[in-house]
């Protein structure tokens, strides 16, 4: 097991290295390099643009730029005033030492921007996800234990529909119904706010919760559909197995057979799936946060894409990729840990 994890960790590092080359290459696909969009939007004169290019080190060949991006330039001479003559020592530390550079738009360190927004996304998405699981697991169990009952038929139909509902449309419909159409019967104000994290300056719990309802409902629906369907089918595979019949024959109450013996086995693939899905739950934040004006990572990424803020985009992509690789690793290890039948060499 330990050797397996070590080998996977080494593979992970190799994978991240390849990914960084790929992503770096993609960002530099932009015609005229990453600064091209900046020049257009801010009407920078060509001479000024050339100076900027030299200051950012964008005049160097791509492989050199990549190495600088990775390891920084504080070990080499750079052209600080952009006149074409190297005249100073660089200040960048490179992403290997946690320096993702400066945002084109705000001129702030990229990591600062991300640190400001990240907690808000974690806050929204973890609540969304916990609620999704809290609803999906009972629905899945009820569907499987009462297969082909009215409840099961309704639940499976809804889960099919839930998976086909795009978040960006569902979000608009939610705002339409709960903000524009339904009103608070006492005050006549919209029933629920249409966006933002809070409207009160200080912390008011009811205000925070009312701002959470729509984005959480929009984000959770698809996941409820997905996990309840998954748990239903994995329970249905397990329920007819012999060991459960034995447990029942030994006089174990149905409740114990279901919750202790069947569910614990059905949960193994579910737990693995959850580990695999975690990064995608955060990616869903792009739509949710854009629609509900939620100041998180998703909206930061969207804004960065509009501004062609390549250092910021690249940082989010690399972090996202690392997150995906890590969750794959965790899923594999969890699976081996939870299921005694799986053994890795």
């Amino acid at each position, binding site marked *: 097991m330990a050797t397996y994890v070590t080998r996977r960790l080494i593979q992970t590092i190799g*994978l991240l290295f*390849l*990914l960084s080359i*790929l*992503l770096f290459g*993609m*960002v530099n*696909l*932009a*015609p*005229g390099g990453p600064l*091209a*969009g900046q020049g257009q939007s801010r009407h920078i004169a060509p001479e000024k643009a050339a100076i900027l290019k030299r200051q950012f080190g964008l005049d160097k060949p791509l492989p050199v730029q990549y190495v600088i991006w990775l390891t920084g330039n504080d070990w080499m001479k750079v052209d600080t005033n952009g006149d074409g003559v190297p005249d100073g020592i660089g200040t960048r530390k490179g992403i290997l030492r946690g320096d993702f550079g400066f945002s084109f738009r705000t001129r702030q360190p990229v990591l600062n921007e991300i640190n400001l927004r990240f907690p808000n996304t974690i806050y929204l998405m973890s609540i969304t996800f916990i609620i999704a699981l809290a609803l999906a697991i009972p629905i899945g169990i009820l569907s499987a234990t009462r297969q082909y009952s009215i409840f099961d038929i309704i639940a499976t139909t809804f889960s*099919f*529909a839930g*998976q*086909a*509902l*795009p978040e*960006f*449309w569902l979000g*608009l*419909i939610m*705002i*339409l119904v709960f*903000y*524009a159409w339904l009103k608070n019967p006492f005050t006549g104000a919209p029933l629920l706010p249409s966006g933002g994290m809070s409207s009160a300056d200080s912390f008011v719990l009811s205000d925070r919760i009312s701002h959470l309802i729509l984005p959480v409902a929009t984000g959770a629906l698809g996941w409820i559909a997905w996990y309840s369907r998954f748990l239903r089918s994995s329970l249905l595979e397990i329920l007819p197995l012999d060991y459960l019949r034995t447990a029942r024959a030994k006089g174990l109450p149905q409740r114990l057979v279901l919750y202790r013996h069947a569910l614990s086995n059905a949960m193994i693939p579910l737990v693995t799936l959850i580990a695999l899905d975690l*990064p995608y739950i955060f*990616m869903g934040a*792009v*739509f949710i946060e*854009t629609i509900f004006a939620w100041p998180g990572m998703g909206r930061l*990424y*969207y804004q960065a*894409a*509009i501004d*062609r803020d390549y250092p910021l*985009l690249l940082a*989010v*992509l690399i972090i*996202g*990729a690392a*997150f*995906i*690789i890590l969750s*794959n690793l965790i899923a594999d290890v969890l699976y081996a840990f939870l299921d005694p039948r799986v053994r890795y060499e």
Partner: protein
Amino acid sequence: MTNQDSNIPLNIDVRGDPEYRQKTAEALDPGNILLKRFRRHPGAMIGMIVLSILIVASLFAFLSHYPVDQSDMSNRLQSPSITHIMGTDALGRDMLTRVLYGGRISLSVGLIVVGIALAIGVPIGALAGYYGGQLDTTLMRLTDVFLSLPAFLVVILLGAIISEGTFPFLKGNSVWTISFVIGILSWMTFARLVRAAFLTIRELDYVTAARSLGSSDLRIIVKHVLPNSIGPIIVEATLEMGYAIVQESGLSFLGFGIQPPTPSWGNLLSNAQENFTKYPWLAIFPGIMIFLSIISVNYIGDGLRDAFDPYKVLETVGEYT
């Protein structure tokens, strides 16, 4: 499970009766079995009907009295009525016409993406699975790299880059460029599926027989192994079309996909966003279209999966004989 030579009934007493022989041959025909199983899946049949209606309506969108892209300021922002079934937008354009033309874009992006993903994924999976060894390791590492990308975020990045300027062979945000961007991030499942199928099939005796008869590798891959791994590929291709439609509309919704005035379901929704609480029909109808096409495609995929399930195929054969 599909029988290579379906004219020879296995384990069946033929008794020399030509009619019986004909019937069993029909019963064992893989195509017939598939169709029969598929028809029994109500969701898949309804999905088929709805998707066909959407495709036909989009194809015949030119029959509409209203031009797709000509403003008519005297008729702007009308709510749905007999003359404008889905109302009109801020420039007085008929929404039904635009939604149908948008369907052309969105559905063709779905098809092209699947085509691109198949064209990349199937050869990669086939080469990796058939030859194994070093080639397999290299190709699967490449697949892993692509699988580790936060795909939709990369699609947003590429959409943003492409809308910036002109590339040698990709011009602006057209149907082809958007499909290309989504397609190069969608082939990995196909590569893995095909590889897995090839790994088992290449060991079978009939492949060895073909090889010993002097068939070239290419011939064995294309004529002998690929046809027997077609089931999961078709199922996955169907589902992939659904993802592609969601991704295109999501991308266009964010403004990095198909650019107005060319309508797509995504950018119609995006246009509606400004004032949709006052003019809800602008947001409701394009979304219903996305929803209908995806749920139909998912149900069709579900039906195909059941139809290709080897155990269920045997059941169907059993009913006949």
